């Protein structure tokens, strides 16, 4: 079965510093990977995805993620964090059961950016 792991419950970073939110995956076949962000009491917002192609994927709000096949990782990054980036971040992988397009989510990482 497909799965993703987010090893950190919380990441703290000072505003202006680079940030990394970690995600590792376990899939059979080629992975379809996603990052979502959730602000308090809101639905999830799509940030970026990796389907195929370049290992460095650029997404919304200045975020990017690097797909690393040898390390089975898909870490989310941003060169300079903003206080407004503080939120809950989810990594997800597509379930390969045909036609359903189910997403399997990680447990989430809370990002706290301090001024």
């Amino acid at each position: 079965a497909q799965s993703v792991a987010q090893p950190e419950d919380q990441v703290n970073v000072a505003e202006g510093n680079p940030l990394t939110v970690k995600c590792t995956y376990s899939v059979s076949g080629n992975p379809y990977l996603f990052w979502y962000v959730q602000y308090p009491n809101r639905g999830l917002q799509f940030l970026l995805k990796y389907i195929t192609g370049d290992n460095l994927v650029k997404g919304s709000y200045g975020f990017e993620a690097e797909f690393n096949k040898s390390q089975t990782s898909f870490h989310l990054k941003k060169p300079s964090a903003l206080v407004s980036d503080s939120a809950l971040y989810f990594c997800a992988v597509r379930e390969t059961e045909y036609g359903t397009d189910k997403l399997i989510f990680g447990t989430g990482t809370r990002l706290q950016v301090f001024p």
Partner: protein
Amino acid sequence: SQTIHQWPATLVQPVGSPLSLECTVEGTSNPNLYWYRQAAGRGLQLLFYSVGIGQISSEVPQNLSASRPQDRQFILSSKKLLLSDSGFYLCAWRVTYNEQFFGPGTRLTVL
């Protein structure tokens, strides 16, 4: 453009009462639709998904049920709520290349 609605936004219900949460999408046809539950502000649990009218697949056996009476309508129900049903319920639909677009959510508190 595509839009997804959920209502109510918040709901407080006593244990043993029935439940009906509604999700509708606009601007698309024959979407795949999904119900998730998020407990304690963390991980998402897929409850149900639907690939078409009347087609429901359950991921987790429990006292909830789902129905899809129309192409763009997805309903989550319960005959008798439990305390453990409290949580944040999210509806989603598939956009393109497998990304899903989420509704604003319904916060359910069972007392």
